[in-house]
């Protein structure tokens, strides 16, 4: 599904966020990317969503070379990826329902079908009762779950999350990670950036460790104790 080959990312000003990074994530796998802040976790995820472009190297996603995707092709690529952000990026003036509905609206799904799938996604994250509320009336954890519902509602082939539990208490964080694991079980590839090592250990999934933009360890699920 994901293939990084000698990928480097140097920002203007000379800071090298990733250097010669190579790894592969097969379809249907769930993996964590970890490391200290500034290790390059966020940059890695941004390259996958074409929020940033690599300076060197080749990234393929589902067999597609991302360097070949022009500006006009980016929306189509992003529709195949569900993205969850630490600051959840919800539209504060629209209801929970409308927020989750957004990817389906963009994808051109008919109204009745949209309603059905939005409700299913909200039920999945346990927020069906809140569909008419505005995000501001929800707690941080609930807002994060709305963000997750939005990321999964269009059934993406790849789910990526950048510090999805960053602002949550441990109990809630475990629940959220459990949700991601459920999506993996139905065939979605999941890649999560997190610096919460104790949480990662509890999940027993593959862990990719970055340090100053370099791959320093790649532990298979069995190796994570």
């Amino acid at each position, binding site marked *: 599904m994901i293939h990084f080959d000698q990928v480097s990312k140097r920002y203007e000003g000379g800071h090298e966020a990733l250097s010669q990074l190579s790894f592969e994530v097969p379809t249907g796998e769930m993996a964590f990317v970890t490391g200290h802040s500034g290790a390059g976790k966020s940059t890695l995820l941004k390259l996958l969503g074409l929020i940033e472009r690599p300076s060197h190297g080749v990234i393929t996603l589902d067999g597609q070379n991302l360097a070949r995707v022009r500006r006009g092709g980016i*929306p189509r690529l992003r529709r195949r990826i569900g993205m969850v952000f630490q600051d959840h990026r919800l539209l504060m003036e629209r209801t929970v329902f409308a927020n989750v509905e957004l990817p389906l609206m963009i994808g*051109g799904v008919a109204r009745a079908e949209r309603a059905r799938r939005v409700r299913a996604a909200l039920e999945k994250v346990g927020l069906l009762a809140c569909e008419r509320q505005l995000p501001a009336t929800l707690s941080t954890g609930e807002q994060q779950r709305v963000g997750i519902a939005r990321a999964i509602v269009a*059934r993406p082939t790849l789910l990526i999350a950048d510090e999805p539990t960053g602002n949550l208490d441990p109990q809630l964080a475990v629940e959220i990670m459990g949700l991601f694991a459920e999506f993996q079980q139905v065939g979605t590839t999941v890649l999560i950036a997190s610096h919460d090592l104790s949480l990662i250990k509890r999940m027993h999934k593959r862990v990719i460790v970055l340090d100053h933009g370099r791959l320093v360890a790649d532990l298979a699920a069995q190796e994570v104790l």
Partner: protein
Amino acid sequence: MNASKEFNGPAAQVPRQQRFASWQEHHGWSAAASLRRLAARPLGSLLTIAVMGLALALPLAFYLLLGNVQKLGDAMGQSQAISVFMQTGQSGQATQLLATQLGNRPEVASVAVKSPQQGMEELAKMQGFSGALALLDDNPLPYVVQLQPRSDASAAAVETLVADVRAMQGVELVQDSDSWRKRLEALLGVGNRVVLMLALMLAMAALLVVGNTVRVDIASRSEEIGVLLLVGASDAFVRRPYLYAGIWYGLFSGILAALLAVVIELGLAAPVAQLSQTYDGKLRVAGLPTWLLLAVPLAAAALGWLGARLVSAWQLRKAA
């Protein structure tokens, strides 16, 4: 949490028909949402609409003015007679002969001879002249022949007529309105060009006004736009509400401009009616044609769309 059948793997492609229906739906949503956003900050929206409306009303006002000057010119030209002043000392008989001669020409509608005596009486009737005339020893006025060209006579024919009369013996001076008319027509030609240029410049100004308003609109919603782009919205999807905002601004300002033009037209009606009386009621106010009043809001809406389209293309390239 028994909804997992909804999440049994990646989604299939959405059928074309469904995509079209939801595309239409998004158009409806964008039109309504942009209107709500306009209404949400009434002062700013009204100011934009007022500035655009005034800019578009101005060329319409000039167009009205020109139309009426044109009509006035026509009316004056029609009633204008050619006055042929005989040399002093030319007898009434000679004048009469010349008048008969001219009366036979096909382009002449009527001929009248005014004796020096009649001329004196006319002058005496004018205020302030009677005293001065009493001081004169004898009548200094010549015989005058007044020619009325046929109203359907061409300008060239009238010109030849005037030239012929000038060349006739005993004629001192020919006073005709022809050169005056030509000058007015040339002036109207310039006026038309000025109105056209003015309309183009003010349309450009309206474009800039709507463009700037939409630019501020987009800038204030950059966060929302960022989110839309991240979840896979195309540029067309993102800018749709802003294009509708441009259309609304244009449409409303166009309606305002058309209303202003009608007000100006009504304001002109009374003075023109007064003027008309001095031309035997021949003069009627030249109004704006209905098609123009309908076309202005539509053209303004197109202008608003264009302004929004240009700005959003530029803003979105920055955002992406």
